[in-house]
């Protein structure tokens, strides 16, 4: 037992962090929200080079193999830097396509290299929307035992997080049919749920970090806001919530990697905890920033607005809790 990231995994996190810091992700998010996907596509390519999209693609299709722990590490960093785009969806789609085998795997090298952006309607959710379908190269829809590639999409429905551009996939052609589709979709949903939990954890971390920095600097009544006990205790609670979520996310990734035990339950537990943690972090960040935190122009808003959608996407809190108690 060594329930700690190894040196290589930590180094992977550090290198992604450095890459993303240098990329000025807030500007990328704002462009993406305005419908300008170019900076986001460029960043997507660099993330692919760093290996992010290879983590759910087998080596025979030019990926790095299926590596859930590294995937969780990567998505925590993507969350920390608020990277926009159908990141979770592309990774889940890779798992889905790989699970179908056959000619469907022809998409995989493009996914691994970053050339191909895929989105899908989260299987098992009751959402009619696919994220960022307006810019994706392939839009997948699973209905029961059937997989379709959507022919077109409805107009973009903006989310409360404007970086999340939702639309309804419509029409298109059937790519596969049969119970194997359902099984592959369930596996893909687990991967999507895990990646979303990791992303939410990363979003929560940045919300806390930025808020701590703010309350150390901001003075009211002649002293730092962060010296008030009410503020201290709220931020302590956020830290505790995040620190006890992180091992759940790591363990869920391990569980998925080993394919032993009930990884679906472990992932649901991680998602429920991460949803609570990021929600608490966002509420606290907003309150501790006061009116400043309520503005669109402070970059903090880019993270605050992610909290609620990530809490709901790929498994609502109550659906995840029900799953935890399912034998």
């Amino acid at each position, binding site marked *: 037992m060594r329930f700690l990231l190894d040196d290589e995994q930590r180094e992977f996190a550090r290198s992604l962090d450095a890459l993303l810091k240098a990329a000025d992700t807030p500007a990328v998010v704002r462009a993406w929200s305005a419908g300008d996907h170019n900076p986001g596509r460029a960043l997507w390519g660099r993330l692919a080079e760093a290996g992010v999209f290879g983590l759910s693609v087998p080596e025979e299709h030019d990926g790095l193999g299926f590596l859930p722990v590294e995937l969780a590490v990567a998505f925590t960093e993507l969350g920390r830097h608020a990277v926009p785009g159908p990141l979770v969806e592309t990774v889940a789609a890779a798992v889905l396509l790989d699970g179908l085998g056959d000619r469907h795997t022809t998409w995989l090298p493009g996914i691994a290299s970053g050339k191909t952006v895929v989105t899908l309607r989260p299987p098992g959710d009751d959402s009619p929307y696919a994220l960022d379908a307006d810019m994706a190269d392939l839009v997948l829809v699973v209905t029961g035992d059937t997989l379709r590639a959507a022919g077109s999409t409805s107009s973009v429905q*903006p989310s*409360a997080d404007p970086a999340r551009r939702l639309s309804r996939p419509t029409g298109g052609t059937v790519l596969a049919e049969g119970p194997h589709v359902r099984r592959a979709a369930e596996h893909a949903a687990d991967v999507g749920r895990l990646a979303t939990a990791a992303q939410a954890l990363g979003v929560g971390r940045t919300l806390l970090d930025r808020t701590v920095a703010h309350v150390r600097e901001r003075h009211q009544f002649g002293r730092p806001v962060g010296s008030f*006990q*009410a503020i201290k205790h709220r931020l302590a609670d956020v830290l505790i919530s995040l620190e006890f979520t992180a091992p759940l996310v790591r363990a869920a990734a391990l569980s998925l990697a080993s394919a032993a035990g009930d990884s679906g339950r472990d992932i649901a537990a991680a998602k429920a905890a991460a949803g609570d943690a990021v929600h608490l972090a966002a509420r606290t960040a907003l309150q501790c920033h006061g009116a400043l935190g309520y503005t669109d122009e402070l970059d903090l808003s880019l993270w*605050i607005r992610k909290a609620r959608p990530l809490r709901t996407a790929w498994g609502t809190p*109550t659906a995840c809790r029900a799953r935890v108690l399912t034998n």
Partner: protein
Amino acid sequence: MDLDFSAAEDAFRAEARAWLAAHVPGTPLPSLETEQGFAAHRTWERTLSADRWSVVSWPEEYGGRGASVLEWLIFEEEYYAAGAPGRVSQNGINLLAPTLFEHGTPEQRARILPPMATGEVIWAQAWSEPEAGSDLASLRSTARRADGGWLLNGQKTWSSRAAFADRAFGLFRSDRSGVDEGRPHRGLTYLMFPLDADGVTVRPIGRLDGKPAFAELFLDDVFVPDEDVIGEPGQGWRVAMSTAGNERGLTLRSPGRFTAAADRLTRLWRDRADPSDTALRDRVADAVIGARAYQLFTYAGASRLAAGGSIGAESSMNKVYWSELDIALHETALDLLGPYGELADRADEAPEHGSWADGHTFSLAGPIYAGTNEIQRDIVAERLLGLPKGRR
């Protein structure tokens, strides 16, 4: 003890309900935090005032109906139950007008109140400054004596709706000696100024959903004539605070908003929710109970006022209660809406014209403005429970 309305009050309610049924727009106006929406809401204020519904609690001479506090509460219940538009004039009506009634001159009242009642002049507040949020006494913007008036300089921020409003009111430091003596509440003066005056620069600030709900104001030698000072120069803090906790302090968030929202939430729950989800059901019930409690608490306050009593630090309990109720209520609605709960209010497919999304964004500011809930809890603990002040 009773909760019964008099025949006159029932008649007043019936009149308000009938008028609203006939006049409230069938589809919601565009968001009042946008230019187009602001104009539409200004027009609505004119409609309201034409039949003397814009300022029911004011004396008739200024466009009101001389309504009692209870009648005002009744009007508000009917107003929100009818789904009527948000009030673009609320800063003027709720914050400036009570101050004018208490500290203004007859000339000021006659000049300022009627166009406020019709929506012809819409007011923004200009309290906060970048370094003075919760700690309002540490204001730095100045009012300097000039011939026949004052010159304003400095920066104000979080000025609600100043992007589109006509005039603003706020506190300015006219005498530094209070600061030097560690009594920063002294030496402040309460002034009004036009937002299009020479020397005023208005920079809109987007709120969480990007709408320019407030603005920064940069003031560079803005001239204000003496007639636009309220109360005595140097006494601005006392002038501003004297109306903060009185009965009109009720007007910040009337119970009608929340009872109407809880009713809408209940309908939404009946129409769309899985009735076997008891976790969600409990949250809907809590919103209903909370809105009712807030209404009853307010009725009790109104009864105390009618009996000659007053409302003091209790308004701090109010503030904490409604602001947290409002968030819980809207979060419940968004959770109930499942994947549609994520949509921005401007999305075509947002349920109920995006009103839940817009209301949620609006609710998130509740624990922050008008004195953060942290400050309010300090006040409750110190003034109502008598706990020692300490340095917090």
